[in-house]
């Protein structure tokens, strides 16, 4: 047995699964996105009571905060915890685990083939709830949904990597009426195996997902090519990041940026008058606050190879910098140096923690 099919829509199926986990006592709490039926506001709920699951909105196309980041403070979990995360959130969490910022111990990870999420500015619109049924239909038919985040439309990693449980949604027409729950690990079979439903040995059909992945890849190329419309090089960088107000919000919401205080806010980068005089010489004018572009490039050296492309950073940018797209583009190149895929495997060491004796012979 590697999958259980339920005769209900995928979102309902996930809620049924969570209810089963709570009612059977297999887990003591679940972490899942919800929607306040009174206000329409989304959040991420930590729920211990079955009744609390009525407001769960497990696959609504919304990401308020990266669940991977939130999960850090809940782990190592003393008692079993089930978590519903998007594939990128799970990858982010794995990246955090590698940095000792969390643990997979006692955590049942439930993820799904993801159709992407909408930017927060769309989510807060009053009519947002109306968008969802159509969204789910289009996702199920394997389409890339207009209006979702840039990095979501360009995301090839929408099939969860190493989740305990995977629900099939994207590119699965059956997900509107039926919920296919794939049990990938021993932990999943142990905790979820007792859920009533039609058991089978099905696996996710790679042919279908590959097709969607190919579409997303085309979208990604388009996105990457559009990033510096008028200039490459330093001009391009200034064009993209030159609007930065230095709020560092992007770093704060980034699930990979785990530092208590960002190094770029430290005293090393506090300047005095002689510094500005030196900087001005031969130039005549400076942009203040200082170090805005430096901050972004510096952050790339810190974490780009671990970027999962969740897109939160772009969402929170007050001046509309496509931070996520830039980081995703750069991150693909830095990760490729080491054949590294962020969040692929918790045992895979961060590329900056290890080395090979024979590599990069072209350098130096």
């Amino acid at each position, binding site marked *: 047995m590697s999958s259980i099919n339920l005769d209900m829509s995928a979102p309902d199926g996930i809620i049924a699964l969570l209810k089963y986990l709570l009612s059977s006592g297999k887990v003591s709490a679940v972490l899942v996105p919800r929607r306040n039926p009174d206000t329409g506001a989304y959040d991420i709920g930590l729920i211990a009571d079955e009744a609390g699951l009525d407001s769960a909105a497990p696959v609504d196309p919304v990401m308020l905060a990266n669940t991977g980041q939130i999960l850090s403070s809940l782990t190592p979990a003393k008692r079993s915890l089930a978590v519903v995360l998007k594939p990128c959130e799970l990858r982010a969490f794995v990246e955090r685990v590698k940095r*000792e910022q969390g643990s997979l111990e006692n955590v049942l990870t439930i993820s799904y083939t993801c159709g992407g999420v909408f930017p927060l500015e769309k989510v807060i619109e009053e009519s947002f709830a109306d968008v969802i049924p159509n969204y789910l239909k289009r996702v199920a038919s394997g389409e890339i949904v207009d209006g979702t985040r840039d990095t979501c439309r360009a995301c090839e990693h929408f099939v969860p990597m190493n989740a305990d449980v995977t629900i099939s949604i994207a590119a699965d027409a059956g997900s509107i009426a039926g919920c296919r729950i794939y049990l990938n690990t021993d932990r999943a079979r142990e905790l979820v195996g007792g859920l009533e439903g039609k058991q089978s040995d099905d696996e996710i059909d790679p042919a279908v997902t590959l097709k969607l992945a190919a579409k997303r890849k085309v979208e990604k190329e388009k996105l990457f090519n559009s990033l510096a419309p008028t200039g490459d090089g330093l001009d391009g960088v200034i064009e993209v990041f030159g609007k930065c107000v230095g709020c560092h919000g992007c770093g704060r919401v980034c699930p990979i940026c785990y530092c208590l205080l960002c190094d770029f806010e430290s005293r090393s980068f506090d300047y005095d008058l002689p*510094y500005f005089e030196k900087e001005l010489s031969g130039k005549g004018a400076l942009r203040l606050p200082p170090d805005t572009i430096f901050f972004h490039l510096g952050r790339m050296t810190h974490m780009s190879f671990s970027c999962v492309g969740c897109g939160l950073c772009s969402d929170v940018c007050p001046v509309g910098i496509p931070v996520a797209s830039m980081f995703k583009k750069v991150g693909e190149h830095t990760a490729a140096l080491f054949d590294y895929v962020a969040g692929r495997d918790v045992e895979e060491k961060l590329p900056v*923690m290890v080395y090979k004796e024979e590599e990069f012979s072209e350098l130096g």
Partner: protein
Amino acid sequence: MGSKSKSVVVVGAGIAGIQASLDLAELGVEVHLIEDTPTIGGRMPQLDKTFPTNDCSMCILAPKMSECARHARITIHINSSLDAISGEPGDFRCTITERAKYVDPVKCVACGLCEEKCPVKVDDVFDTGLRKRKAISRYFLQSIPAEYTIDKDNCLFFTRGVCKMCEKVCPADAINYEDQDRQLELSAGAIILATGIDPFNPIGFGNFGYHRFANVVTSLEFERILSASGPLGGHVVRASDSKEPKSIAFIQCVGSRDESIGKNYCSSACCMFTIKQAIIAKEHMKDLEPTVFYMDIRAFGKDFDKYYEKAEKKYGVVFTRSKVADIDELPGGNLRLRYTEENGDIKYGEFDMVILAIGLEAREGNRVLSEELDIKLNEFDFYRSDAFGPLESTREGVFVCGAANGPKDIPESVVSASGAVASAAKYLKLERQDIASEDEGAAELDVTGDRPRVGVFVCHCGINIAGVVDVKNVAEYAATLSNVEHSEDVMYACSTDCLETIKKRIEEHGLNRVIVAACTPRTHEPLFRETIAEAGLNPYLCEMANIRDQCSWAHMEEPELATAKSRDLVEMTVAKARQLSSLERLPIDIDPRALVIGGGLSGMTAALSLAEAGHEVFLVEKEKDLGGNMRDIFFNFDKADPQAFLAETIARVEENENIRVFMAGRIDGITGYVGNFETTISGGGNGDAEKVKHGVVIVATGGEEHKTEEYLYGRSSRIVSLVEFEKMLKTGNFPAGRIRNVVIVQCVGSREEGRMYCSRVCCTKAVKNALELKKAKPGADVYFAYRDIRTYGFREKYYTELRDTGAVFLRYTPETKPVVNMVDETNPDSRLKVTAFDPILEKEVEITADLLVLSAAIDPPEGNVRLAKMLKVPLNSDGMFLEAHVKLRPVDFATDGIFVCGLAHSPKDMDESLAQAKAAASRALTFLNKKAILAEGTIARVREDRCSGCAYCESICAYAAIEVDPEKEVAVVNEALCKGCGACVASCRCGALDLLGFSNEQLFSAFDSLEMVITDGGAD
């Protein structure tokens, strides 16, 4: 033995002499290091790279040389010789002659003007005559001490009474033509001879045409040619037409393994030396075709065979087993080799260049010196020592190390040097040292929080700097920089009077930072730091700006730009200095006890060395008996009985009150760090686990004979391993019936997939036992199946002896291994049918063997993996413990306070294990003999409030010096282990780590201070 002394005379300042001196000095002993040439360093500075890591020779040696020169307890006597000794061990009187240098070393500032102006050119010995030097010169550019000497035999003044140019140009008034040879009387508790070797001189040797044909050079000359700092700048060209060679022939054993010239020994290092040169040459010239002509490739050391394989497979070096008969020079300069292949065929080969791999021979001076010192030489004129006293000369209290008593490579020399120190310790008055003495002097001022008050001293260095850079301009510019309270230019910043000036200015101006803009901080920063410490400042408040080596000397044609750069360098240094803070070197207490793991020969020897120096030792042996592998060794070449020696050693261990043996013991856990380890040992008699505290750990876990499944081992009583064979020879319990044909197969399990290493001892051991067999069964015929005979060093003559008995040598390759069949499959005592390929006859031979001996590999014990994890030290790919540096730290681990010796390190013979065990003990004593050591000042520091506990740093640190505390979830630096490299600091994403002395703020400030656009000319 009379009284014990606190000083030692070490003769010879090559790597062995340097290592011995450093170890002794660290034990608190006064060392007089006597060196014949005008510099310390010996042979290593002449080498370009070292095998098998291709480490740059000078890179690894230079720090040791300067440490030696700086050490307060080491006095270097260059141009000197030991002429006589009198007195008793423990209280020798040594007569030293210091030959005149004609340059006052106190006054000479090594500016080099004299050399520039000297009109006499002579061959440069250091560069093997490939370059010229002057009659007044420095031995080589990085020589230590950095002094000039006059070569009296070539100086115009001394030979013809004219010139005196050097005296005229010397700005320091250092030339003294009146200088005389001086005699010194030194007292010494012990004497260590580290006089090294001479390279074999191949002039007139064989028919190789050395010195007749321009393109035939020795391996030492080729080393200089390969060297980036050599006479050709590392550009390999041949002498006849300055063209890059396309093909090079290396001829092995030139002056080695040659009875006809009285050199029936192997020089041990040349095979590897050649492989290295072939690889390096190939790296220089991608199209080069190197061919090596050899008898046997003796890659017997740790990781050597892998290197050999790499040369063949990766670099395409061709190895041709043959004997070169002669060489002809062809028109155009190419060389034609005539050589005999293994099967007797005569072949010819044409090469652009020929390298003669010259052997190592006893030093010419050995005969005279040995007579003067009343010490015996062996038949090859090397100092005599024996298997159970590998470091002792024939005179009590006089020790030998390095290649003085036999050819050795660098790590073996270092091992023997450290080992000799442990042996000498017996004659020395050793006391555990306090660290307080280093802190004497003025009480340190607390400058924390004070506004930086910087003093800048710009050095003229005679005309070295001032001849190019406008020093006054630089000093004036410095005065304009903020926080600079005082600035001046000085003639020689390092001269005694100037150092006094600096101290005076600190007081006058209340300086709390000092910058000296002069030469390189690598050589002079310690001096200036000491100086400001004498004035009450923390030594780390001094920085240097390198305006000589990296400015005036490098920009001699551009004085204005050089002046501008000097200003920038000073400004950058001031910017860094503003951010400097006082650094403390924290004392780390050292527990005087030691843990030795393994009670074989190595472990016992190490334990005894430590115990005899007064330290308590916990010796843990996993078996029920002491002795390890040596319990199975019954014969030895020089007649000394191994079992008698072993019994004596065990008795000494058991009788020694300082040694506590844990028999059938097991290590359950080790925690702590240098000086402060705690180990849980179970077993040890009462069966309860016990915790012991100790300051150091010596790993001597030994090795095991590989249990082979090849060659039908185990199927017939007539198939035995080499160890079993030795027992059989001892007991006389041979299989019943005739023992006529005995086949010995070498490299069983060694040098092949899964065990890509040579087990080193098997060739010698098999030769030894074959000779024993001949004694026991004179009628026996020995068939010796081998891949390369590796009877290195003086072991060679036993191989020759075995050959002379008529033993048949059958060389095989991995593809042509001998095939063994039982004559009668059903009989467990069946004779064997051995089929082997004879490459000389080029056909298969079949032998009905009465006995088959399998020389099985040496395996690392399984427990190594567990122990390595506990100690957090690495194993190499073969499962042997991996030392800190394969060349210069052969018994240390990167982690301080942990040492390795014996087979745990790699396969080796008894004498080598003894030497290495003593070396490990000696290195351990450098810690144990101190009550406390000082941690580095330049170490990583954690700002706990910013640390996220991600453990990047922990995964990166090579010294296990930083760990995330599981409770606090922040990184914690172990100050005792941190080496201050800063790798962790640059890995820290959160900015929670910093490197004291090289902090982020310091580096950023320094860079920020730089003008990124250079205004041309610098004058405006």
